[in-house]
Protein backbone atom coordinates (compact mmCIF):
# COMPACT_ATOMS: atom_id res chain seq x y z
CA UNK A 1 0.00 0.00 0.00
CA UNK A 2 1.39 3.41 -0.92
CA UNK A 3 0.63 6.70 0.75
CA UNK A 4 2.29 9.75 -0.80
CA UNK A 5 4.93 11.54 1.25
CA UNK A 6 3.91 14.87 2.75
CA UNK A 7 5.52 18.28 2.12
CA UNK A 8 3.33 20.20 4.58
CA UNK A 9 1.26 18.41 7.20
CA UNK A 10 1.43 15.88 10.01
CA UNK A 11 2.23 12.26 10.62
CA UNK A 12 0.66 11.15 13.88
CA UNK A 13 2.64 8.08 14.82
CA UNK A 14 2.76 5.46 17.60
CA UNK A 15 -0.99 5.44 18.05
CA UNK A 16 -2.12 2.37 19.97
CA UNK A 17 -3.54 -0.12 17.49
CA UNK A 18 -7.26 0.46 17.12
CA UNK A 19 -7.22 4.02 18.50
CA UNK A 20 -6.84 5.87 15.17
CA UNK A 21 -10.57 6.33 14.70
CA UNK A 22 -10.90 7.84 18.21
CA UNK A 23 -8.32 10.46 17.21
CA UNK A 24 -10.01 10.96 13.83
CA UNK A 25 -13.23 11.78 15.69
CA UNK A 26 -11.62 13.84 18.48
CA UNK A 27 -9.85 16.07 15.95
CA UNK A 28 -12.86 16.24 13.58
CA UNK A 29 -10.61 15.14 10.72
CA UNK A 30 -13.66 14.26 8.65
CA UNK A 31 -14.33 17.98 8.26
CA UNK A 32 -10.99 18.72 6.54
CA UNK A 33 -10.75 19.43 2.82
CA UNK A 34 -7.33 17.73 2.44
CA UNK A 35 -6.18 14.12 2.19
CA UNK A 36 -6.18 12.18 5.44
CA UNK A 37 -4.73 8.67 5.50
CA UNK A 38 -5.45 6.27 8.33
CA UNK A 39 -3.16 3.28 8.58
CA UNK A 40 -4.21 0.63 11.06
CA UNK A 41 -2.38 -2.38 12.47
CA UNK A 42 0.97 -1.32 11.00
CA UNK A 43 3.82 -3.61 12.22
CA UNK A 44 5.98 -1.86 14.83
CA UNK A 45 9.19 -3.07 16.47
CA UNK A 46 8.35 -1.24 19.72
CA UNK A 47 4.61 -1.74 19.90
CA UNK A 48 3.98 -4.92 17.93
CA UNK A 49 1.40 -3.09 15.89
CA UNK A 50 0.29 0.52 15.79
CA UNK A 51 -1.92 2.97 13.93
CA UNK A 52 -0.71 6.01 11.99
CA UNK A 53 -2.61 9.04 10.68
CA UNK A 54 -1.26 11.28 7.92
CA UNK A 55 -2.76 14.71 7.31
CA UNK A 56 -1.75 16.46 4.10
CA UNK A 57 -2.09 20.02 5.40
CA UNK A 58 -0.82 22.18 8.28
CA UNK A 59 -3.90 22.70 10.41
CA UNK A 60 -4.38 23.71 14.06
CA UNK A 61 -3.78 20.44 15.91
CA UNK A 62 -5.31 20.12 19.37
CA UNK A 63 -2.49 18.45 21.30
CA UNK A 64 -4.67 18.38 24.42
CA UNK A 65 -7.24 16.17 22.72
CA UNK A 66 -4.46 13.99 21.27
CA UNK A 67 -2.83 13.56 24.67
CA UNK A 68 -6.13 12.65 26.24
CA UNK A 69 -7.01 9.98 23.69
CA UNK A 70 -3.53 8.48 23.68
CA UNK A 71 -0.63 10.10 25.62
CA UNK A 72 1.97 7.83 23.96
CA UNK A 73 1.68 9.16 20.44
CA UNK A 74 4.28 11.14 18.48
CA UNK A 75 3.36 14.02 16.22
CA UNK A 76 5.72 14.70 13.31
CA UNK A 77 5.14 18.15 11.86
CA UNK A 78 6.34 18.52 8.28
CA UNK A 79 6.93 22.06 7.11
CA UNK A 80 8.31 22.39 3.54
CA UNK A 81 9.75 18.91 3.89
CA UNK A 82 11.43 19.61 7.27
CA UNK A 83 10.32 17.30 10.08
CA UNK A 84 10.02 18.20 13.77
CA UNK A 85 8.86 15.71 16.40
CA UNK A 86 6.74 16.26 19.48
CA UNK A 87 5.39 13.70 21.90
CA UNK A 88 1.83 14.19 23.15
CA UNK A 89 1.50 14.23 26.93
CA UNK A 90 -1.40 13.53 29.24
CA UNK A 91 -2.93 17.01 29.62
CA UNK A 92 -3.61 18.40 33.11
CA UNK A 93 -6.74 20.13 31.86
CA UNK A 94 -9.15 19.49 29.00
CA UNK A 95 -11.07 22.46 27.71
CA UNK A 96 -14.03 21.80 25.40
CA UNK A 97 -12.80 18.31 24.56
CA UNK A 98 -15.34 16.35 26.61
CA UNK A 99 -18.88 17.12 27.64
CA UNK A 100 -20.09 16.52 31.19
CA UNK A 101 -22.80 13.87 31.25
CA UNK A 102 -24.16 14.69 34.69
CA UNK A 103 -27.69 16.05 34.17
CA UNK A 104 -27.40 17.88 37.50
CA UNK A 105 -24.25 19.78 36.40
CA UNK A 106 -24.56 23.54 35.84
CA UNK A 107 -23.19 23.00 32.30
CA UNK A 108 -26.38 21.08 31.47
CA UNK A 109 -28.38 24.32 31.60
CA UNK A 110 -25.73 26.94 30.80
CA UNK A 111 -24.34 25.75 27.49
CA UNK A 112 -22.05 28.74 26.96
CA UNK A 113 -19.86 27.71 29.89
CA UNK A 114 -16.58 26.09 28.82
CA UNK A 115 -16.51 22.34 29.45
CA UNK A 116 -13.43 21.93 31.63
CA UNK A 117 -12.08 18.69 33.05
CA UNK A 118 -9.06 18.38 35.39
CA UNK A 119 -6.71 15.42 35.64
CA UNK A 120 -7.24 14.20 39.21
CA UNK A 121 -5.40 10.87 39.04
CA UNK A 122 -2.59 10.66 36.45
CA UNK A 123 -1.93 6.95 37.16
CA UNK A 124 -5.50 5.91 36.48
CA UNK A 125 -6.02 8.73 33.93
CA UNK A 126 -9.09 10.02 35.74
CA UNK A 127 -10.50 13.37 34.71
CA UNK A 128 -13.27 15.12 36.62
CA UNK A 129 -15.56 17.98 35.62
CA UNK A 130 -14.39 21.11 37.49
CA UNK A 131 -17.99 22.11 38.22
CA UNK A 132 -19.61 18.95 39.56
CA UNK A 133 -16.57 16.61 39.89
CA UNK A 134 -18.27 13.91 37.85
CA UNK A 135 -15.73 11.52 36.39
CA UNK A 136 -15.25 11.53 32.62
CA UNK A 137 -15.77 8.17 30.96
CA UNK A 138 -12.72 6.56 29.40
CA UNK A 139 -14.35 6.48 25.98
CA UNK A 140 -13.85 10.20 25.71
CA UNK A 141 -17.34 11.64 26.18
Amino acid at each position, binding site marked *: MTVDSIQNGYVIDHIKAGKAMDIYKALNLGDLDCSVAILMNVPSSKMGKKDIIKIDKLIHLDFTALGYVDPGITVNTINNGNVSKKRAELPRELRNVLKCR*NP*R*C*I*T*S*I*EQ*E*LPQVFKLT*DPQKRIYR*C*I*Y*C*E*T*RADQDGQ
Partner: protein
Amino acid sequence: MKHLIDIMDLSVAEIDELIETALDIIKDPEKYQDVLRHKKLATLFFEPSTRTRLSFESAMLSLGGSVLGFSEAQSSSAAKGESVADTVRVVGCYADIIAMRHPKEGAPLVASMFSPVPIINAGDGGHNHPTQTLTDLLTIRREKGGLDNLTIGICGDLKYGRTVHSLINAMSRYRNIRFVLISPDELKVPDYIINDVLKKKNIPFKETASLEDSMEDLDILYMTRVQRERFFDESEYMRLKDSYILTPEKLINAKKTMSILHPLPRVNEISVAVDNDERACYFRQVLNGKFIRMALILKLLEVI
Protein backbone atom coordinates in the same frame (compact mmCIF):
# COMPACT_ATOMS: atom_id res chain seq x y z
CA MET B 1 -10.60 37.71 47.42
CA LYS B 2 -11.55 34.35 48.85
CA HIS B 3 -14.68 32.29 48.34
CA LEU B 4 -15.94 29.12 50.03
CA ILE B 5 -17.11 26.60 47.46
CA ASP B 6 -15.83 23.28 48.84
CA ILE B 7 -14.81 22.50 52.44
CA MET B 8 -11.44 21.33 51.07
CA ASP B 9 -10.79 24.93 49.89
CA LEU B 10 -9.97 25.60 53.55
CA SER B 11 -6.76 24.38 55.17
CA VAL B 12 -6.87 22.81 58.62
CA ALA B 13 -5.31 26.03 59.96
CA GLU B 14 -8.06 28.13 58.37
CA ILE B 15 -10.77 25.85 59.79
CA ASP B 16 -9.15 26.09 63.22
CA GLU B 17 -9.11 29.88 62.87
CA LEU B 18 -12.83 29.91 61.98
CA ILE B 19 -13.65 27.68 64.94
CA GLU B 20 -11.64 29.91 67.29
CA THR B 21 -13.51 32.98 65.98
CA ALA B 22 -16.85 31.20 66.44
CA LEU B 23 -15.88 30.27 70.02
CA ASP B 24 -14.97 33.90 70.70
CA ILE B 25 -18.33 35.04 69.26
CA ILE B 26 -20.10 32.56 71.55
CA LYS B 27 -18.12 33.89 74.52
CA ASP B 28 -18.69 37.56 73.79
CA PRO B 29 -21.42 38.15 71.17
CA GLU B 30 -21.69 41.86 71.99
CA LYS B 31 -18.14 42.41 70.78
CA TYR B 32 -19.30 41.41 67.30
CA GLN B 33 -22.82 42.85 67.17
CA ASP B 34 -21.90 45.94 65.15
CA VAL B 35 -18.75 44.93 63.29
CA LEU B 36 -20.54 44.64 59.94
CA ARG B 37 -22.71 47.73 60.23
CA HIS B 38 -23.54 49.02 56.71
CA LYS B 39 -22.42 45.74 55.11
CA LYS B 40 -24.91 43.68 53.12
CA LEU B 41 -25.28 39.96 52.57
CA ALA B 42 -27.26 38.76 49.53
CA THR B 43 -28.87 35.36 49.91
CA LEU B 44 -29.47 34.01 46.40
CA PHE B 45 -31.51 30.87 46.91
CA PHE B 46 -32.36 29.38 43.51
CA GLU B 47 -34.07 26.55 45.39
CA PRO B 48 -35.86 26.89 48.70
CA SER B 49 -34.01 26.02 51.90
CA THR B 50 -35.57 28.02 54.66
CA ARG B 51 -33.34 26.81 57.48
CA THR B 52 -30.02 27.46 55.71
CA ARG B 53 -31.18 30.85 54.45
CA LEU B 54 -32.38 31.90 57.89
CA SER B 55 -29.11 30.74 59.42
CA PHE B 56 -27.14 32.97 57.03
CA GLU B 57 -29.50 35.89 57.54
CA SER B 58 -29.45 35.53 61.31
CA ALA B 59 -25.64 35.35 61.21
CA MET B 60 -25.39 38.57 59.20
CA LEU B 61 -27.95 40.40 61.36
CA SER B 62 -26.09 39.31 64.50
CA LEU B 63 -23.01 41.03 63.12
CA GLY B 64 -24.90 44.29 62.60
CA GLY B 65 -25.22 43.87 58.83
CA SER B 66 -28.26 43.76 56.56
CA VAL B 67 -29.62 41.14 54.20
CA LEU B 68 -31.30 41.11 50.82
CA GLY B 69 -32.07 38.42 48.29
CA PHE B 70 -34.60 35.88 47.09
CA SER B 71 -35.69 32.48 48.33
CA GLU B 72 -36.69 30.67 45.14
CA ALA B 73 -35.75 30.83 41.47
CA GLN B 74 -39.25 31.91 40.36
CA SER B 75 -38.78 35.26 42.06
CA SER B 76 -35.35 35.85 40.49
CA SER B 77 -34.12 36.79 37.04
CA ALA B 78 -33.08 33.15 36.55
CA ALA B 79 -36.74 32.55 35.69
CA LYS B 80 -36.16 34.84 32.69
CA GLY B 81 -33.13 32.81 31.67
CA GLU B 82 -30.34 34.95 33.13
CA SER B 83 -27.06 33.09 33.63
CA VAL B 84 -25.44 32.59 37.03
CA ALA B 85 -22.48 34.66 35.84
CA ASP B 86 -24.67 37.67 35.00
CA THR B 87 -26.74 37.34 38.18
CA VAL B 88 -23.71 37.55 40.47
CA ARG B 89 -22.12 40.39 38.52
CA VAL B 90 -25.33 42.36 39.05
CA VAL B 91 -25.91 41.36 42.67
CA GLY B 92 -22.23 42.04 43.39
CA CYS B 93 -23.02 45.72 42.75
CA TYR B 94 -25.62 45.67 45.55
CA ALA B 95 -24.06 43.44 48.22
CA ASP B 96 -20.69 42.93 49.90
CA ILE B 97 -20.94 39.13 50.07
CA ILE B 98 -23.21 36.49 48.54
CA ALA B 99 -24.52 33.17 49.91
CA MET B 100 -25.83 31.05 47.05
CA ARG B 101 -27.88 27.90 46.97
CA HIS B 102 -28.55 26.35 43.58
CA PRO B 103 -30.04 23.05 42.41
CA LYS B 104 -27.30 22.60 39.80
CA GLU B 105 -23.92 21.25 40.86
CA GLY B 106 -21.07 23.69 40.29
CA ALA B 107 -23.25 26.83 40.09
CA PRO B 108 -21.47 28.51 43.05
CA LEU B 109 -18.09 27.74 41.46
CA VAL B 110 -19.27 29.48 38.28
CA ALA B 111 -20.46 32.39 40.45
CA SER B 112 -17.04 32.65 42.10
CA MET B 113 -15.39 32.95 38.68
CA PHE B 114 -17.38 36.08 37.84
CA SER B 115 -18.38 37.70 41.12
CA PRO B 116 -16.81 40.96 42.30
CA VAL B 117 -17.59 39.94 45.92
CA PRO B 118 -16.98 36.73 47.95
CA ILE B 119 -19.29 33.77 47.25
CA ILE B 120 -20.34 31.24 49.88
CA ASN B 121 -21.73 27.95 48.59
CA ALA B 122 -24.90 27.37 50.62
CA GLY B 123 -25.48 24.02 48.88
CA ASP B 124 -25.30 23.05 45.20
CA GLY B 125 -27.60 20.13 44.48
CA GLY B 126 -26.21 16.93 45.93
CA HIS B 127 -22.65 18.15 45.56
CA ASN B 128 -21.18 20.41 48.27
CA HIS B 129 -22.51 22.08 51.39
CA PRO B 130 -19.38 23.36 53.13
CA THR B 131 -21.08 25.45 55.81
CA GLN B 132 -22.89 22.32 57.03
CA THR B 133 -19.51 20.65 57.43
CA LEU B 134 -18.13 23.67 59.28
CA THR B 135 -21.19 23.45 61.52
CA ASP B 136 -20.46 19.77 62.16
CA LEU B 137 -16.81 20.51 62.95
CA LEU B 138 -17.66 23.31 65.40
CA THR B 139 -20.21 21.03 67.06
CA ILE B 140 -17.70 18.19 67.44
CA ARG B 141 -15.12 20.63 68.78
CA ARG B 142 -17.54 22.05 71.34
CA GLU B 143 -18.96 18.71 72.40
CA LYS B 144 -15.70 16.76 72.52
CA GLY B 145 -13.18 19.52 73.25
CA GLY B 146 -11.16 18.76 70.11
CA LEU B 147 -11.17 17.17 66.68
CA ASP B 148 -8.49 14.48 67.19
CA ASN B 149 -8.69 10.96 68.66
CA LEU B 150 -12.31 10.20 67.78
CA THR B 151 -14.27 7.17 66.60
CA ILE B 152 -17.01 8.54 64.38
CA GLY B 153 -20.02 6.46 63.42
CA ILE B 154 -21.94 7.68 60.39
CA CYS B 155 -25.29 6.06 59.83
CA GLY B 156 -27.87 6.08 57.05
CA ASP B 157 -27.52 7.11 53.43
CA LEU B 158 -23.75 7.14 52.98
CA LYS B 159 -23.92 6.88 49.19
CA TYR B 160 -25.78 10.04 48.23
CA GLY B 161 -25.46 12.09 51.43
CA ARG B 162 -23.27 15.08 50.58
CA THR B 163 -22.82 16.01 54.24
CA VAL B 164 -21.39 12.55 54.86
CA HIS B 165 -18.76 12.80 52.13
CA SER B 166 -17.69 16.28 53.19
CA LEU B 167 -17.50 15.20 56.83
CA ILE B 168 -15.32 12.19 55.98
CA ASN B 169 -13.07 14.42 53.86
CA ALA B 170 -12.80 17.09 56.54
CA MET B 171 -12.32 14.77 59.53
CA SER B 172 -9.76 12.63 57.71
CA ARG B 173 -7.30 15.53 58.10
CA TYR B 174 -7.27 15.22 61.89
CA ARG B 175 -5.18 12.83 63.99
CA ASN B 176 -6.19 9.37 65.13
CA ILE B 177 -9.65 9.33 63.57
CA ARG B 178 -11.54 6.08 63.00
CA PHE B 179 -14.78 5.71 61.08
CA VAL B 180 -17.59 3.20 61.49
CA LEU B 181 -19.74 3.42 58.36
CA ILE B 182 -23.21 2.09 59.08
CA SER B 183 -25.56 1.61 56.12
CA PRO B 184 -27.47 -0.95 54.08
CA ASP B 185 -25.51 -2.43 51.17
CA GLU B 186 -27.37 -0.23 48.68
CA LEU B 187 -26.25 2.97 50.38
CA LYS B 188 -22.59 2.30 51.23
CA VAL B 189 -19.93 5.02 50.92
CA PRO B 190 -18.85 5.24 47.23
CA ASP B 191 -15.59 3.53 46.26
CA TYR B 192 -13.87 6.78 45.37
CA ILE B 193 -14.23 8.03 48.95
CA ILE B 194 -13.06 4.68 50.34
CA ASN B 195 -10.06 4.52 47.97
CA ASP B 196 -9.09 8.17 47.49
CA VAL B 197 -9.62 9.31 51.07
CA LEU B 198 -9.73 6.53 53.65
CA LYS B 199 -7.35 3.95 52.17
CA LYS B 200 -5.02 6.57 50.71
CA LYS B 201 -4.59 8.20 54.13
CA ASN B 202 -4.51 4.88 56.03
CA ILE B 203 -7.51 5.84 58.11
CA PRO B 204 -9.02 2.87 59.95
CA PHE B 205 -12.65 2.25 59.02
CA LYS B 206 -15.24 -0.46 59.33
CA GLU B 207 -18.33 -0.91 57.17
CA THR B 208 -21.32 -2.52 58.83
CA ALA B 209 -25.04 -2.86 58.28
CA SER B 210 -25.83 -2.86 62.00
CA LEU B 211 -26.39 0.31 63.98
CA GLU B 212 -26.13 -1.46 67.33
CA ASP B 213 -22.99 -3.58 66.74
CA SER B 214 -20.39 -0.84 67.13
CA MET B 215 -22.40 1.51 69.32
CA GLU B 216 -20.15 1.04 72.37
CA ASP B 217 -17.05 2.19 70.45
CA LEU B 218 -18.42 5.48 69.18
CA ASP B 219 -17.50 8.98 70.37
CA ILE B 220 -19.75 10.56 67.73
CA LEU B 221 -22.85 9.15 66.04
CA TYR B 222 -23.79 11.15 62.94
CA MET B 223 -27.27 10.18 61.81
CA THR B 224 -28.69 10.77 58.33
CA ARG B 225 -31.95 9.80 56.75
CA VAL B 226 -32.50 6.65 54.70
CA GLN B 227 -34.83 7.73 51.93
CA ARG B 228 -37.34 5.39 50.33
CA GLU B 229 -36.60 6.69 46.82
CA ARG B 230 -32.98 5.54 47.06
CA PHE B 231 -33.99 1.86 47.03
CA PHE B 232 -34.52 -0.15 43.87
CA ASP B 233 -36.54 -2.67 45.79
CA GLU B 234 -39.46 -1.49 47.91
CA SER B 235 -39.48 -4.67 50.02
CA GLU B 236 -35.81 -4.12 50.84
CA TYR B 237 -36.64 -0.62 52.05
CA MET B 238 -39.48 -1.94 54.21
CA ARG B 239 -37.16 -4.58 55.68
CA LEU B 240 -34.40 -2.09 56.52
CA LYS B 241 -36.08 1.17 57.33
CA ASP B 242 -36.48 0.58 61.07
CA SER B 243 -32.89 -0.66 61.45
CA TYR B 244 -31.64 2.87 61.02
CA ILE B 245 -33.98 4.61 63.40
CA LEU B 246 -32.23 5.65 66.57
CA THR B 247 -34.21 4.87 69.70
CA PRO B 248 -33.32 4.99 73.42
CA GLU B 249 -33.09 1.16 73.37
CA LYS B 250 -30.38 1.23 70.72
CA LEU B 251 -28.37 3.64 72.88
CA ILE B 252 -28.12 1.26 75.85
CA ASN B 253 -24.52 0.26 75.08
CA ALA B 254 -23.40 3.70 73.92
CA LYS B 255 -20.82 5.70 75.88
CA LYS B 256 -22.27 8.22 78.30
CA THR B 257 -20.14 10.84 76.55
CA MET B 258 -21.14 9.96 72.98
CA SER B 259 -22.54 12.87 70.93
CA ILE B 260 -25.44 12.38 68.50
CA LEU B 261 -25.39 14.73 65.51
CA HIS B 262 -27.80 15.14 62.60
CA PRO B 263 -27.71 17.75 59.81
CA LEU B 264 -31.53 18.09 60.02
CA PRO B 265 -34.27 18.13 58.90
CA ARG B 266 -35.12 14.90 60.68
CA VAL B 267 -38.03 12.80 59.53
CA ASN B 268 -38.16 9.71 61.71
CA GLU B 269 -34.56 8.49 61.83
CA ILE B 270 -34.12 9.72 65.40
CA SER B 271 -37.01 8.95 67.70
CA VAL B 272 -38.26 12.05 69.55
CA ALA B 273 -37.72 10.02 72.72
CA VAL B 274 -33.96 10.58 72.17
CA ASP B 275 -34.33 14.39 72.16
CA ASN B 276 -34.14 14.69 75.93
CA ASP B 277 -31.02 12.53 76.16
CA GLU B 278 -28.10 14.85 76.95
CA ARG B 279 -26.08 13.14 74.21
CA ALA B 280 -28.47 14.55 71.57
CA CYS B 281 -26.63 17.56 70.10
CA TYR B 282 -28.61 18.23 66.94
CA PHE B 283 -30.41 21.33 68.13
CA ARG B 284 -27.20 22.74 69.62
CA GLN B 285 -25.69 21.93 66.21
CA VAL B 286 -28.21 24.30 64.57
CA LEU B 287 -27.08 27.14 66.82
CA ASN B 288 -23.45 26.33 66.04
CA GLY B 289 -24.36 26.72 62.36
CA LYS B 290 -25.17 30.35 62.95
CA PHE B 291 -21.96 31.02 64.90
CA ILE B 292 -19.68 29.40 62.34
CA ARG B 293 -21.43 31.28 59.50
CA MET B 294 -20.79 34.50 61.42
CA ALA B 295 -17.10 33.59 61.65
CA LEU B 296 -17.02 32.70 57.95
CA ILE B 297 -18.62 35.97 56.84
CA LEU B 298 -16.09 37.89 58.96
CA LYS B 299 -13.22 35.96 57.43
CA LEU B 300 -14.36 36.37 53.83
CA LEU B 301 -14.95 40.09 54.37
CA GLU B 302 -11.44 40.21 55.86
CA VAL B 303 -12.68 41.69 59.13
CA ILE B 304 -10.72 39.07 61.13
